[in-house]
């Protein structure tokens, strides 16, 4: 393998890791506050579609990103309300959000664009970058990749080095003690869940208008669930999750590189799922989630 192949594999690794990273960070923040989000997949689909629809109507990538964030935040509010206020089973609500997100996107795709399967091509990050050159073009083309890297560091600092971040984790570890210490458990859980939805949707927007320039049915293709795996693999913290996303992204890029080498792609594709099972079963050190993760809070 010469240098250029290695550079290409590394570049594709980061590109493939980015959508997982956003959804994974979304999972990290809500689970650290004690709300498990199985609905990442549906939130990514909602974000991917909303971005394309907004870009189609307004020809603006900025508005597209904003609309994606809003769609994810709305699903986050739904999850937060049912999980926190109504104390519903978080797994069941998450599954409902998956069905609603994916089904809703397919419904609107057929309705808005009059064609099932895929949307027309819309203005994307690549189109924005086409107007620039050199460093500026790279910055614009991969804006969401850079933002993702910044977010990892920012969230790590936020969760472990700032007062609100420590409070957020306290709420996920020991809600009753947090309440006694004067922390508003419900407020933190709502905020974390809504932020998590917005982040997952941003990952979806990256898929539709960052990597390509359209929405197609089945586009998210299980990335929400791989992100869930990355959160477990990354021990529920941002840096670890980013590492897991890069690791999974590396296997995606290897797949592309090895396609000609006749290595069965399916077997490589299976690896993240297999490794997650190994991790959750505790074969490689115990994967321990926040203590109150998934537990409804009753004051």
């Amino acid at each position: 393998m010469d240098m250029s192949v290695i550079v290409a594999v590394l570049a594709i690794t980061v590109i493939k890791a980015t959508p997982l990273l956003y959804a994974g960070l979304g999972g990290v923040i809500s689970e650290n506050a004690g709300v498990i989000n199985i609905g990442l997949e549906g939130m990514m689909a909602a974000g991917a579609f909303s971005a394309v629809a907004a870009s189609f109507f307004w020809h603006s990538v900025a508005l597209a990103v904003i609309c994606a964030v809003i769609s994810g935040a709305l699903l986050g509010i739904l999850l937060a309300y049912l999980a926190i206020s109504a104390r519903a089973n978080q797994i069941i609500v998450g599954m409902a959000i998956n069905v609603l997100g994916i089904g809703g996107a397919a419904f609107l795709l057929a309705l808005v664009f009059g064609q099932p399967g895929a949307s027309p091509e819309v203005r994307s990050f690549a189109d924005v970058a086409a107007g620039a050159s050199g460093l500026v073009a790279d910055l614009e083309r991969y804006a969401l990749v850079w933002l993702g890297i910044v977010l990892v560091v920012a969230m790590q600092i936020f969760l472990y080095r700032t007062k609100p971040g420590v409070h957020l984790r306290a709420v996920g570890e020991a809600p009753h003690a947090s309440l006694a210490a004067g922390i508003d458990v419900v407020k933190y859980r709502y905020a974390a869940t809504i932020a998590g939805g917005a982040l997952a949707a941003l990952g979806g927007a990256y898929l539709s208008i960052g990597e390509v320039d359209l929405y197609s049915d089945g586009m998210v293709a299980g990335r929400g669930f791989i992100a869930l795996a990355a959160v477990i693999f990354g021990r529920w913290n941002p840096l670890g999750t980013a590492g897991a996303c890069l690791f999974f992204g590396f296997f995606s890029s290897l797949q592309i590189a090895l396609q000609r080498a006749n290595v069965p792609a399916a077997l490589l594709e299976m690896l993240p799922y297999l490794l997650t099972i190994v991790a959750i079963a505790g074969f490689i050190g115990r994967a321990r989630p926040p203590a109150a993760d998934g537990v409804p809070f009753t004051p």
Partner: protein
Amino acid sequence: MGLVAPLLALAVGSFVILAARENPLAAYGALVNGAFGSVQGLAETLAQTTVFVFAGLSVAIAFRAGLFNIGAEGQLVSGALCAAVAGAYVHLPSPLEIPLCLAAGALGGAILGSIAGALRARYGASEVITTIMLNYIAYLGANYLVSGPLRGSPFAPETATIDTTAMLHPIIPDTRLTAALPLAMLTAAALWWWLRATVAGFELRTVGRSERVARYAGISVPGVILKTMALSGALAGIGGACEVMGLLHRFNAQLSPGYGFTSIAVALLAQSNPLGVIASGFFFGVLQNGALSMQSQAMVPKDLVSIIEGLVILFVSASWAGSRLTVHRAPATADPLAPDGPLTSGPA
């Protein structure tokens, strides 16, 4: 509860149709007409119901033991592949071949279910996470097998056609309704009786109520978890086998458009009662089959059905909020992914 969730979901669905500037009455009318309007339509609805009943029973039986099987999809795929292989490569007369293929399907599903069950029973690994991951492993593995070693068609990645002796034939001419539906209903009735009247059924329900109580009563909780997940997987696997034996006559990895996920809604709507699963399976069969007529006649995209499905799950989950799901829970341990944790508390 019963009818409230589907009615609410249909009501919200009608607002969605209105927002799409179509007529809800016309849309639902076309849906009902497509699902019931003719012998062919009704037979197709019942044919679609079959897989929902089997997969719904799979999720429901796990719920009764306090386990959340999100893996019915993968178990169904694995069962369908095993049945297709048995049907294509073993040559026996029908009375032997059909039970063999069904057993192969059950085994295929049970293996996947048992993996999740064993990891949960032995290591406390959340079956929610492991079954999600096993879904993808099953899909990718099956896809690999039919693209390579098991490929039996020059045109597409799929197995060879199964023997005629392995096929379930239509019980109404010119339809796709086979004996798989009566089999599904009998299975549901048998499970209902088994849960109520046998020691094993009682043990399963006791574990679902409280693992701690079950332990005090001398029930082997890991044993029940393993057996339940195997049974749950087997049921989904038989559903997959019936798809192959009755409808497709071969296997390809795309054979399920998410039946295993819809089955979560089926089981929730039935409140995990095996007999209720027949009714809720029929409800989703109607939606699934009627959606095509709704799309072609009333211009409402068929994906409205997914929205209704998601709403049904939401309304059922909201109606249970803070009540049964939490009341019967064993005291929360620190780790929700460990055996007694809340993640695993299904409706009792």
